[in-house]
């Protein structure tokens, strides 16, 4: 057995969807080229951008940082990073430390923002309350708000997240199966909001399968936090993920075809289904909101904070 590209007999990966067999060097190069292709095709970066990487220290965000850094080295963009410390004992600190070390290694501006400092409560403390709405609900909303605020404070023009092919396909299938056409119109490689205060979000890893990102960080010997969030549970997303992975065993291209199919109907979906939100301000924090209170503040009020 030898590498389909260079003939090296030391192969590390069999790409089921294309039949390619790759050695370490050709595998790493293939991932980096694919991400750069997505960035160009979807016009994710503009010269002079300051990109804020949402850096958890996990494999997806570290890969995003690593590949975007090649644009920084060529002086096309500048990069900064933010890490959100949700306050999850025996889990988050390891990721925060790894994120900090990557930022130091690359010499980029990095900020760690904790839920405790910003909102006066940790996720662990929220989960001890009775009638909480589930960890992921709070975590998602607070994290999004913190990252948006950090982008404005750090003068970022784009926010890059580590969403991979599996994440995107799960989102497409979940929203479709739940009949959530509104959310279905919002997916994509680049999401822009009409409110100026919301920085444009980009997903450079959107066409890379999760497993290939895991292999990429191991092959490149990048330090990452491989661990499971203690609050991870069998969610609907998890069920969709299991179904898609099961289908992919017999149909290796199915995740790509799901994404392509969505891309084909996306414009029609947007034209027909996209809601035009009234853009007001949250009366409590002043962040853009279509309601009197933004989601984060409505949770804070419910929590008596």
């Amino acid at each position, binding site marked *: 057995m030898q590498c389909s590209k260079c003939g090296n007999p030391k192969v*590390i990966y069999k790409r089921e969807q294309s039949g390619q067999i790759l050695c370490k060097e050709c595998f790493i190069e293939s991932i980096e080229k694919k991400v750069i292709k997505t960035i160009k095709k979807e016009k994710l970066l503009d010269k002079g951008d300051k990109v804020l990487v949402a850096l958890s220290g996990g494999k997806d965000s570290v890969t995003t940082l690593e590949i975007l850094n090649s644009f920084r080295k060529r002086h096309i963009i500048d990069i900064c990073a933010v890490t959100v410390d949700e306050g999850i004992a025996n889990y988050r600190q390891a990721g925060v430390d790894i994120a900090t070390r990557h930022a130091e290694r690359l010499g980029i501006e990095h900020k760690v923002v904790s839920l405790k400092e910003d909102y006066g409560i940790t996720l662990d403390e929220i989960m001890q309350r009775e009638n909480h709405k589930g960890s992921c609900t709070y975590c998602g909303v607070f994290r999004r708000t913190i990252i948006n605020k950090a982008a404005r404070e750090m003068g970022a023009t784009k926010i890059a997240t580590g969403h991979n092919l599996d994440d995107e396909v799960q989102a497409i299938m979940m929203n479709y199966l739940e009949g959530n056409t509104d959310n279905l119109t919002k997916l994509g490689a680049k999401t822009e909001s009409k409110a100026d205060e919301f920085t444009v979000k980009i997903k450079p890893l959107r066409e890379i399968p999760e497993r290939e990102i895991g292999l990429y960080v191991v092959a490149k010997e990048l330090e990452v936090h491989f661990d499971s969030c203690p609050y991870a549970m069998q969610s609907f997303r998890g069920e969709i993920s299991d179904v898609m992975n099961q289908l992919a065993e017999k149909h290796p291209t199915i995740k790509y075809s799901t994404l392509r199919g969505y891309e084909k109907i996306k414009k029609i979906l947007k034209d027909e289904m996209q809601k035009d939100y009234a853009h007001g301000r949250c009366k409590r924090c002043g962040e853009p909101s279509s309601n009197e209170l933004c989601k984060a503040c409505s949770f804070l009020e419910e929590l008596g904070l």
Partner: protein
Amino acid sequence: MSFLLKYKQIEEEREIPDENYTIKDLLDEMELSPQTMVSKQNGELVIEDTVIEDGDEIQLVQIIYGG
């Protein structure tokens, strides 16, 4: 005929049951999905079809976690 298995906290000598015993066979035996793991043979990344040899050090790294 044996190999050293390293996986999370596990570090143990295991017998090689037959001469064409692959990393895929080991993963199946341990009920681990190849989709969530990468494997190293004597410190170098390899594919799951790799046959385990006498004296090998096989390290398994979980790269995908739920949630």
